[in-house]
């Protein structure tokens, strides 16, 4: 896929990202990957999947391994209360105890126990099926399962970091990807979690504060885990279709390069913004476009995003662009606004440094 990006970025004129760059680029990359992998590696892939299925750990105190996928879908069923999905998944599929889950989510044990009992009773009494949903229900249900696993990971990603939750989320994503090997987003999520987890030691400073990506000590990144993440991303890219987790994993993979390739990152954010429109993704797109194609174009995108006026990162990005464009007064105003809104000391310190310049 990265080859396709390089090629496309070379072909497109510097002064214009096409209207729909993401679709084009993903399709191109995908076709090439499909050609390559489908033609040469069908047997190898099956052998590998089989090996990975066999390597899955048997959770002794959890459930029969054969039923874990069905259970996962039952735990994330839309007829269950949303706040029951994560604890139920950790309890029934992950094998965590109620006190462990209560501690991880800072919920009183009695509250959690009651939530779990109610949800389990509903699974039984309301006839929530223990099965992988049929084709017509699968896309929606799979989204719910993926979101639940991602929530488990984010709960552990911190700061404060809770390793065991991240590890559990990665185990669940690996399980899902192995048991549903044809689902592009199962591999996409697995890849994303591995690539994010690989940066865990560099992401938080010794005093517990968040370290921005560009300031992270890359020697602390887990290279082996990055390689695993990229392997999962390749498996995802070999399948038809795309999705938000796959695109985010591709972005994370590019950020793990010695030099971030901002043109490719901008293209991926453009595609992500199409699939999953949100102001925060637009802002990421603006930053990437600014880095790749110049501050003026980045600023134009940032200024067109509605509803982010209370979001410090919007003003921080605007400050950055305005300073690059030599509009110093406006840059200072933007940084001051960002400083007033920033929620953490690390970010305030960063913004004060910008203002002192």
């Amino acid at each position: 896929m990265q080859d396709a990006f390089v090629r496309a970025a070379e072909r497109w004129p510097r002064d214009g990202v096409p209207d729909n760059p993401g679709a084009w680029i993903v399709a191109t990359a995908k076709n090439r990957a499909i050609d390559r992998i489908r033609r040469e590696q069908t047997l190898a892939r099956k052998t590998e999947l089989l090996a990975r299925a066999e390597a899955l750990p048997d959770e002794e105190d959890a459930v029969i391994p054969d039923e874990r996928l069905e259970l996962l879908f039952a735990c994330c069923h839309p007829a269950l209360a949303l706040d029951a999905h994560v604890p139920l998944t950790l309890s029934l599929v992950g094998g965590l105890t109620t006190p462990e889950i209560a501690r991880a989510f800072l919920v009183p044990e009695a509250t959690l126990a009651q939530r779990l009992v109610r949800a389990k009773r509903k699974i039984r009494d309301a006839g929530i099926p223990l099965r992988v949903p049929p084709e017509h229900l699968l896309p929606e249900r799979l989204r719910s399962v993926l979101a639940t696993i991602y929530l488990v990971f984010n709960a552990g990603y911190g700061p404060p970091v809770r390793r065991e939750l991240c590890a559990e989320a990665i185990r669940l994503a690996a399980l899902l990807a192995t048991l549903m090997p044809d689902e592009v987003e199962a591999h996409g999520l697995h890849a994303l979690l591995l690539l994010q987890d690989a940066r865990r030691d560099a992401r938080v400073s010794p005093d517990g504060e968040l370290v921005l990506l560009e300031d992270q000590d890359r020697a602390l990144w887990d290279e082996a885990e990055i390689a695993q993440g990229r392997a999962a991303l390749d498996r995802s890219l070999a399948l038809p279709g795309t999705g938000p987790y796959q695109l985010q994993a591709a972005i994370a993979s590019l950020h793990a390069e010695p030099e971030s390739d901002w043109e490719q990152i901008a293209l991926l954010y453009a595609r992500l913004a199409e699939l999953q429109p949100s102001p925060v993704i637009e802002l990421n797109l603006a930053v990437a476009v600014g880095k790749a194609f110049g501050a003026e174009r980045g600023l134009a995108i940032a200024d067109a995003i509605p509803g982010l006026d209370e979001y410090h990162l919007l003003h921080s990005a605007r400050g950055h662009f305005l300073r690059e464009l030599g509009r110093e007064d406006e840059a200072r105003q933007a940084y001051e606004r960002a400083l007033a809104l920033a929620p953490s000391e690390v970010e305030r310190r960063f913004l004060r440094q910008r203002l002192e310049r």
Partner: protein
Amino acid sequence: MQYMLLIYGEDSGWKALTPEQQREMGAAYFAFTDELRASGKMVAGDALQPVATATSVRVRGGETLATDGPFAETKEALGGYYLIDVDTLDEAIGWAAKIPGAAYGTIEVRPIVTDYEAM
């Protein structure tokens, strides 16, 4: 297992429709009922007269008290039901979503108690 599909909607909803819309709605319900019956999953189903016809009954101290009106005065009222026999909640949700009234009001899906010992 059996599920009751309870059809809630605005009690005045039917009257608010034009005669043309009422005919369309009626035809949609007939078509749905035919489809459900043909599938072999239908146990029962009826429409209820408007809430204005409701009488609430309570027995207190051995005395029967009948009063005008529904159990609870709400904007949305029970307007009808289907009782179906299907294998899973997913299937029940699928039928509930096909009820014409689901596009205007809410269908509450309730499993029927089968094992009184386990309650």
